[in-house]
């Protein structure tokens, strides 16, 4: 028996009750949280040790293979976690018709920011100035 069989036909038609996708969101929020513990500590530690670096030293570090891999993982986990976390807050506090637009804005912004950060890091790794040709 499927879970939504417990709903009345009226309740099912109006879309009330669990959409059954909630656990996936809850779980991925935890998965990204666990991934972010070592990744953010690495990032914070790097900020400390790189405090005195000049531009060329920072670029050399940002462009090294290990940094690119960890930075891509960090940005992916970070903006995924942000999208899920902010969705919980939005679900709890916004009950007007604006909710869907706020949710969409958060989702798209997270995708845009995560992707932009990854692409910027790849530009650094391959030694191409990002402003070139624009």
């Amino acid at each position, binding site marked *: 028996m499927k879970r939504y069989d417990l709903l009345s036909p009226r309740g099912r038609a109006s879309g009330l009750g669990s959409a059954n996708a909630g656990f996936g969101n809850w779980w991925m929020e935890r998965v990204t949280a666990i991934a972010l513990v070592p990744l*953010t500590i690495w990032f914070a530690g790097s900020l400390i040790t790189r405090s005195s670096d000049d531009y060329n030293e920072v670029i050399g570090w940002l462009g090294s293979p290990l940094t690119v891999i960890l930075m891509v993982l960090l940005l992916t986990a970070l903006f995924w976690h942000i999208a899920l*976390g902010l969705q919980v807050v939005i679900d709890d506090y916004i009950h007007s018709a604006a909710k869907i637009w706020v949710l969409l804005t958060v989702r798209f912004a997270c995708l845009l920011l995560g992707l932009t950060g990854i692409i910027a890091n790849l*530009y650094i790794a391959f030694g191409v100035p*990002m402003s070139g040709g624009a």
Partner: protein
Amino acid sequence: MEGKARKPSRPRSPNIQIYRPQLTSVLSIAHRITGIFLSLCSMSVVVWLVAAANGPASYIRFQGVIGSWLGQIVLLIAVFGFFLHVCGGIRHLIWDTAHGFELRHIYISGWFVIATSLMLTLVFWIASRMVWG
């Protein structure tokens, strides 16, 4: 559910404005506030990467903003917020394994989160200043 017009507006519980703040409730809302604040701060990580990819001029401009007194204050708040969110997050992960729910343990872990976050913020700040020179 016949539409919003028929829904009476009843008082909501708990009435936050007359509720005495407790460690548990303060840490709960702090986790959300730091989460929202750190989401905004994450944007500056992307801006930082784009500035670095753009070239030395835009990178130095970015450093100027972060190095200003306002930038440093925001950074200090962000560092403390980050450690509070990480420590609070680990506390939540432990709760997810169904451990530490006894009221005494909830208060112990709560104060532990605050003390550890303050200590780590101090260590972070002093260490980066020492490297900065």
